[in-house]
């Protein structure tokens, strides 16, 4: 394992200190328990939008803390959900009197820890709502699984709901909006290589040089099927076809297309993939009105990518375009 770290046990805290040093104007970092909080929190009268999850997906979630997006993020250890006291600390630090909305990726660990936190926060008198994000079409949503995972769609939910809270929408409206975005977003990922969790020291799985894993999660967990490596055209089809079939997205739809790197895939390859996806969508009569391209929800140094497609309407476009000022996303300011 070759990583720029001092000690596997202090990776998250060390990174948080660096993050605080890098963005003093945007955020504050608390370390016991670990929470990244918007610099001007608590914002009076505003719904607090809070998310969190295991570390190793940077810039998710801490990189999205700031004006127009998240009020706080709770970073767990690498690939492990945060604990309820982190979430409670986030609620306390951001409580502007309008309640808190917890945006939770649908993984058992995250769900159970946020659920426990919501119960504790409610007992302390803050109104807390939770919306689960489950956009990964690689996992069958059935009684026989823990349900779909939250992946790329998370970034879009956080941006859009963050904008709504910033413009003054109340807790009911923010919650309903979050559910609406979740209902209209679908994702799928692929891994070309595995990643190495610092405290494990070895790759999470092995892929031969001529193999790729379709339907990969963002924690190095194996995906849906292992297939021979293909050129970019084939890879993009493997991701896009199941996404479009699932919702389904149909001719005439207006969409946001998010082409995401898992961390190790460079932008030059990502743009190749993005161009192909735009062409395939155009062929189907689906209009790409907004796009996001880059490493926004990663899996450490994994090579690979994901595609996320969100169905848009005028309100969602307006909220997407609204000003945002965070470490990882910034426009309109």
């Amino acid at each position: 394992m070759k990583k720029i770290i001092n000690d596997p046990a202090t990776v998250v805290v060390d990174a948080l200190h660096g993050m605080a040093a890098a963005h003093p104007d945007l955020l504050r970092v608390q370390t016991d328990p670990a929470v990244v909080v918007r610099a001007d929190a608590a914002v009076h009268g505003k719904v607090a939008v809070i998310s969190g999850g295991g570390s190793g997906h940077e810039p998710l979630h801490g990189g999205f803390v700031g004006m127009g997006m998240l009020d706080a993020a709770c970073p767990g250890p690498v690939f492990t959900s945060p604990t309820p006291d982190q979430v409670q600390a986030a609620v306390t630090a951001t409580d502007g009197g309008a309640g808190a909305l917890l945006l939770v990726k649908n993984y058992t660990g995250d769900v159970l820890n946020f659920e426990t936190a919501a119960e504790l926060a409610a007992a302390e008198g803050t109104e807390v709502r939770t919306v689960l994000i489950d956009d990964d079409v690689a996992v069958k949503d059935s009684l026989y699984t823990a349900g779909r995972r939250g992946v790329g769609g998370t970034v879009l939910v956080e941006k859009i709901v963050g904008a709504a809270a910033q413009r003054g929408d109340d807790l009911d409206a923010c919650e309903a909006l979050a559910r609406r975005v979740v209902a209209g977003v679908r994702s799928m990922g692929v891994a070309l290589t595995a990643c190495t969790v610092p405290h494990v020291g070895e790759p999470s799985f092995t892929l031969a040089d001529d193999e790729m894993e379709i339907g990969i999660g963002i924690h190095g967990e194996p995906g849906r099927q292992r297939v021979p490596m293909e050129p970019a055209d084939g890879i993009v089809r493997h991701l896009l076809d199941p996404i479009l079939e699932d919702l389904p997205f149909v001719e005439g739809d207006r969409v946001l297309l998010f082409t995401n790197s898992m961390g190790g895939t460079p932008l030059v390859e990502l743009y190749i993939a993005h161009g192909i996806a735009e062409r395939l969508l155009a062929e189907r009569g689906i209009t790409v009105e907004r796009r996001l391209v880059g490493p926004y929800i990663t899996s450490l140094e994994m090579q690979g990518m994901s595609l996320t497609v969100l169905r848009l309407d005028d309100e969602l476009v307006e909220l997407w375009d609204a000003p945002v000022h965070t470490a990882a996303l910034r426009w309109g300011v």
Partner: protein
Amino acid sequence: MGCSVEGVVAALRSAAEVVTAHRDELVELDRVIGDADHGENLKRGFTALVSKLDLSEPPATPSAALKLAATTLISTVGGAAGPLYGTALLRAATSVGDAAELDAAGVAAALRAALDGVVARGKAEPGDKTMVDALTPAVAAAEAAAASGSTVAEVLSAAADAADEGAASTVPLVARKGRASYLGERSANHLDPGSRSTALLLRSFAESAGGGDR
């Protein structure tokens, strides 16, 4: 003889030793069908528990000791196991009430409450390939042993034996809960890490209870 608060604290300390000794094994089990953190998560939590036991006032009752363990694990383990084991211990703490000593029936009742807590939180059923597959037979065995007049140590050791078998029974199963369920059929032929840690914890309690003259 029953189990005093000192006995409960000793059992928690021995659990911490066992979890630390088996950290790599649990990580490896979780690497194959999960995300390689189960052993690390539990080690972090139990290490935090030991430092709390070292640094703070000793708990006054078995219930207080279990509650300290519950809140510490909830706030330090994370993952699925943190809230699940935390809830289990919290329910066990409530079940033993303000008793100064736990007898065999009290231990069996606490294990039953723990199982109910895990099921209430995680909604897993037997056969879903989770810690519930180890804990369910363990509770039944503990209750049977308590009903037939066994000591606390015997109750715990019956529970640990049944948990070992329950854990082994997860190998052929296809996971329907937790991270391993994403693998579908590919989760079969592997031991569930949470069922293994449950069996290890119960074994450590049994050995700790058998070690003294309880």
